[in-house]
């Protein structure tokens, strides 16, 4: 039981990152390998606002989400739009986003230096006990904020004009264009929202993990794994996949072996892909022919 509880906050973080992958994938068909580095940027910006500028947790959270969203839009405008206009093969798009990841990572190294930073949490990290179980207020904060963001995302997708445009484009890009949806705008919105989700995950995880310039690689990969487990491009699947992965890692690390934890994760991932190529929660694979 305790393992399950420990896995929940980790799962929430993975779920946020998985959402950011899924959203971009479904709305613009791009597999964005720089998502993990948006997490890193969010964590560093949050650290800068809180520790160096002395802002509170709330304003820092919002500010870094906004700034990273701007970075996301810049990436879409400057790199992915030209690629799309030239009809580049998917492998080139993958390499381009990897290029973004390498660049972002090393700009961060230049700005913030090679030393790991630790973000001061706004709440205490002393565990509180509920019966036999213990959970830290920081973990509760992660869970609460993640759930809040997921609801906000749902609201945005269902009720706002931009969100509806996103869903229309995701369903049928061509038809959406005919209906007068500005796909350039919707792509930018997808990148902005995704990047800010990543940034949020970064600030939330910063008090428990160290903030380093290459933290994005690990978290980004795990988030992508979660997104695929849930079914890439399927929003509820990304959330489910995130929690599934968090719980799996926590259980595998606690029960079997911490060294082989990631081996187990990846092995289960490959077996899952083999048996159910469309993800755990999606019934059929939507194959574009």
């Amino acid at each position, binding site marked *: 039981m305790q393992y399950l509880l420990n896995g929940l906050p980790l799962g929430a973080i993975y779920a946020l990152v998985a959402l950011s992958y899924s959203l971009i994938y479904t709305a613009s068909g791009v597999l964005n390998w720089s998502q993990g580095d948006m997490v890193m940027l969010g964590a560093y910006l949050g650290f800068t606002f809180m520790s160096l500028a002395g802002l509170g947790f709330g304003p820092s959270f919002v500010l870094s989400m906004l700034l990273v969203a701007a970075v996301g839009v810049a990436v879409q405008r400057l*790199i992915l739009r030209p*690629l799309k206009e030239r009809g580049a*093969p998917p492998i080139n798009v993958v390499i*381009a986003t990897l*290029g973004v990841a390498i660049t972002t990572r090393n700009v961060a190294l230049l700005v913030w230096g090679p030393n790991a930073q630790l973000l001061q949490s706004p709440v205490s990290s002393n565990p509180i006990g509920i019966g036999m179980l213990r959970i830290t207020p920081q973990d509760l904060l992660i869970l609460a904020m993640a759930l809040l963001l997921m609801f906000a995302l749902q609201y945005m997708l269902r009720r706002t004009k931009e969100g509806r445009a996103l869903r229309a484009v995701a369903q049928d890009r061509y038809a959406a264009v005919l209906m007068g949806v500005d796909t350039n705008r919707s792509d930018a919105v997808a990148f902005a929202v995704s990047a800010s989700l990543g940034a949020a995950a970064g600030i939330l995880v910063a008090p428990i993990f160290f903030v380093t310039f290459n933290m994005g690689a690990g978290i980004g*990969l795990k988030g992508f794994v979660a997104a695929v487990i849930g079914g890439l491009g399927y929003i509820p699947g990304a959330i489910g996949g995130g929690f599934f992965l968090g719980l799996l890692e926590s259980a595998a690390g606690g029960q079997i072996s911490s060294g082989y934890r990631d081996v187990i994760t990846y092995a289960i991932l*490959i077996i899952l*892909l083999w048996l159910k190529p469309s993800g755990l929660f999606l019934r059929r694979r939507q194959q574009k022919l």
Partner: protein
Amino acid sequence: MKSEKKHLIYLAAGLLAAASLPFVITNVYYLHVINLAGIYCLVTVGLNLLSGYTGQVSMGHAGFFAIGTYVSALSALDLGVPWLPGTILAVLSASLCGFVIAVPAMKLAGSYLVLATVGFGEIVRLVLVNWTPVTKGAAGLVGIPLPNIFGIRITSEGEFFYLILVMLILGAGIARRLADSKIGRTFIAIREDELASRAMGVPVDRYKTAAFMISAAFAGAAGSIYGAFSGVTSPDNFTFDDSVAFLCMSVVGGSRTVGGAVVGTVALVSLTELLRAFQAYRLIVYGLILIITVIYMPQGLAGLMFKKHTREESEADS
């Protein structure tokens, strides 16, 4: 016919130039970098057969490379197997792993396939780190013996250069023959339209598995020479970033030609060396160049060099 003759002359001139390199470059460090580039070329040539020709993008080739290195090095260290049989063992084990990963990969495409290969690469690395009794864990292997081929001992950088050159020529030759054969054309057919190939009676699954095994075999052979060349090795040499680097070399050079693999590898390795002067800005510039290349040279550097070939391919694409 005439252009083919011309091609042969260019090829011979290129080979002659390559063979005379150790006489021109006396700096041992540069020769070392050139040798490394040659080893990477071998991996990338194999990767191009899989990712470029067959369209099965792999981001786990460092895994096959690692298996080649460790199998050859361990059989030399623990069992005293000479280098050449060790290389054969390395090639066989790598392609066996290629077969294993091909089983789930057959059903996957696009991002899902990429993730499965990423998972494979990570599993290999993590097993190398954690299986301490055999692999010596994160500390890695030391004292991998130098190759001794029928009494010829390879010791200096210059001697390694020729061994690597011979392997690369053999590898590229095999890859070219494959690519121009029925197998290569079938690979391309699968890349362009898997469903149509299947409908035409092509045993798609068998060809995909073959592509994985062949590609892994190249990486295994490269790994075998890599271990003997470095003398030491550790799991840190085979990370996700290394798999990404192989893919970048493949795409920057042009993943749909054999020559592109060589061009891309040489270009990116030289770029890394040239950028050393920039120090802290090195990888920033590297990332930006990567982005600019894939936007403005969608067919890679080889696309610019072999224009005629590209036009045919872009017509096939559209």
